[in-house]
């Protein structure tokens, strides 16, 4: 079993003149939970489609489980689970029929697990998929995705439009899945609170370029918010390297720094700050500061 389950080298894709993905390099090891973050239209779905061999890359190559993305064999596809945006299902069928349809193609389909998952969600396999609510459809889609015991799970915005209870259920299923040896999860999501709970590593893509690719703890240690209080009436120009965002409130500034360490606090004191205090900030706040354009004093 190879160590690197997802690999991308210089992956680039143009749509006409527009560059959707720009020289993306990615390397995901087995056993990681990778949160792929980015704003709408930043190139997440395009990257995922290229990795899965559904979109031809203009340049560069990708590989899943050691197999080139352009030539994914059915054996490799059977080991990769994919849930695309919007939890699509074949609406003409019943749940049980859909499961039977997929069961034909996956040798490792775990029927007992699927039945118990449906029972846990309190869904009758005889129900027509067209009559399910959004949350129920998402649950069925996830169950169908996990039933073939995939080694690698790729989820494109799995929590879109779901209520908090279903989202928590999702996370629990993901946590359960990670418990098993050698499973890797690669997912993109806008619910950063959820990403924070389960991700080991994150990658932030912005306008097609992968800007950050590191461990979650590393990211949160390096990108930090700092509160500074200056003497009354003073609002010095804060031209620090790695400054992402500044927000002023009278004589107090909340800055977000991209490469935080203890020395930066001294730098700020040097600029005339009376009180300097690092703040706690969740991944969502840090992400917003990281991807928002650098604005001047607000």
């Amino acid at each position, binding site marked *: 079993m190879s160590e690197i389950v997802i690999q991308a080298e210089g992956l680039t894709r143009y749509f006409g003149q527009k560059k959707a993905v720009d020289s993306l390099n990615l390397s995901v090891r087995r*056993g990681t939970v990778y949160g792929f973050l980015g704003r709408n239209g930043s190139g997440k779905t395009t990257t995922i489609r290229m990795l899965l061999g559904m979109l031809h890359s203009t340049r560069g190559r990708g590989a899943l489980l050691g197999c080139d993305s352009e030539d994914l064999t059915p054996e490799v596809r059977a080991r990769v689970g994919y849930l695309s945006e919007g939890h699509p299902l074949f609406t003409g069928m019943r749940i049980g029929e859909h499961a039977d349809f997929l069961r034909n193609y996956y040798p490792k389909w775990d029927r007992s697990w699927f039945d118990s998952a449906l029972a846990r969600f309190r869904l009758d396999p005889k129900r027509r998929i067209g009559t399910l609510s959004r949350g129920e459809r998402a649950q069925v889609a996830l169950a169908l995705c996990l039933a073939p015991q995939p080694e690698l799970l790729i989820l494109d915005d799995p929590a879109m439009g779901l209520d908090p209870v279903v989202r928590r259920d999702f996370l629990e299923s993901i*946590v359960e899945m*990670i*418990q098993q040896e050698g499973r890797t999860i690669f997912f993109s999501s806008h619910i950063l609170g959820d990403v924070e*709970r389960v991700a080991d590593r994150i990658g932030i893509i912005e306008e097609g370029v992968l800007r950050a690719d590191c461990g979650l*703890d590393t990211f949160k*240690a390096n990108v930090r918010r700092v509160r500074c209080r200056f003497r009354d009436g003073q609002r010095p120009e804060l031209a620090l390297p790695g400054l992402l965002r500044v927000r002023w409130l009278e004589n107090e500034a909340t800055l977000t720094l991209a490469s935080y360490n203890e020395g930066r606090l001294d730098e700020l004191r040097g600029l005339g700050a009376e009180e300097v205090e*690092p*703040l706690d900030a969740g991944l969502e706040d840090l992400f917003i500061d990281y991807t928002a354009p650098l604005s001047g004093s607000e």
Partner: protein
Amino acid sequence: MRFAVNPSSAEPVYAQIVRQVREGVARGALHAGERIPSVRDLALQLVINPNTIAAAYREMERAGLVYTQRGRGTFIAEIGTSSSLAERRRLLQKPVDALLTEATHLGFSEEECLELVRAAAKHYRLRESEHE
């Protein structure tokens, strides 16, 4: 003892767990030999990545806070004193300095400070001193 983590905090989740176990042991909420939940159970209960929980457990085992018995679980270890007195004094110096800095800023006298410490010490399982 119930664990609670805040994923949004700047403190890494594994550090939060280690801290909570340490505080629990110090306050007596966790006794030596008591079993703490397995990595799997805690991960499901808190809905946190099991790798993070596993990292916390590894850290605690390395620090001698807990020990694992295969097939039986993870248990709290005795409060050990493996380092020398000088080393331990050095480690305690930092929190003492922080306490005294705050006390100075808040305008407490030495007696008031010690009184506060004595009152709080009742809730912790400090080692019995040999001479009084």
